């Protein structure tokens, strides 16, 4: 297991940004207006995942202090979240 990175959750959304963006470790989540899905992307691994917004919020709540961008998919699976 690699060195844990502190999770950072920055809300980058602004009034002129039509889609909401959150950064979680090295993963960025994109939520478009009027949609109940969040697209997760790791620029490091190139992984793409989609989860619905409640799942995304649950993911953040479940792992507020640690996370591994390269293990995102395993984390999602462990938490019983869907993967597309």
């Amino acid at each position, binding site marked *: 297991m690699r060195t844990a990175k502190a999770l950072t959750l920055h809300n980058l959304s602004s009034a002129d940004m*039509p889609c909401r963006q959150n950064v979680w470790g090295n993963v960025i989540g*994109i*939520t*478009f207006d009027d949609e109940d899905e969040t*697209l997760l992307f790791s620029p490091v691994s190139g992984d793409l995942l989609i989860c619905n917004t409640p799942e995304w919020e649950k993911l953040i709540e479940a792992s507020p202090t640690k996370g591994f961008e390269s293990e995102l998919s395993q984390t999602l699976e462990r938490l019983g979240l869907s993967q597309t």
Partner: protein
Amino acid sequence: MTRYLGELTHQEIENALRTDGLGLDIFGFRCLVTSNTGLLTSPLHFLYPRYPAEIIPNGFFDFHIALNESRHFLGKKTVHFLWEDKSPFPDLPLDQAHALFEWGLNWCIATASGSDIVIHAAVVERDGMALVLPGEPGSGKSTFCADLVFKGWRLLSDELTIIDPKTGLVRPFPRPISLKNSSIDIVAERHPAAPMSGRITDTRKGDIAYIRPPDSAVDSAEAVKISRVIFPKYIAHAELELTPLTKAFGFSRLLENTFNLDLLNKQGFAQYADSISDTDFFDLSYSDLDQVHRCLAELCK
């Protein structure tokens, strides 16, 4: 001195290719091409007549491309592609030199386009509305694109959709439309006046022919915002079916067709997402192009 390639004689082009190189400016990408094959002059003159060209190259070029004759170990003549000491393609039969030029140029741009986002997709525009058509081989993307172009849509690109991440707009990059196998006959039958190159046979993609981009497409430098992304799928005898996709899912599919995703950092990804935030995404299965036109007329009102 810069002239249009169509103003040059075959002899001038051939001399340039065999000596210091032919400079070709394709919507901001400056290419210096050399070749001793004798097989590039005619297709370049026919397909790229309205592109600025230099027979005495001057200044900086983004890509230095060489296509030279070599010899297979069995004695057969082949063509070798080289870009700055890199050769991503195996040597091909000599008569495929032009196809190798087009594929090689695509590869150069997909590999080294700077900060631009490059998607494997055709893109056309009408009434300020850009329609992006990503497609796997066999999806009918190029046939679809060619048919739209001959029905009045402006060609921005048949193969590479290039987005400027700063503006979120698609930069025009019209080059010859590549048709393969049965698509050649379909387009020739539907559009008999289409300016089509000779057929290159038995390539690794089958038979290939190229259509010259309309002058109006080459003369327009206007960048446009993406309005619709349609993932086409040709299915023989199928009824047309248009299925809306969520933006998140559609964007993920677009990302799968993005060449330089590995160059995007978080900010770049956010800019990319922002550029398609007003875009609608659809899956489209079809067999009849006339049905497609009626569908698009309705969709793009």
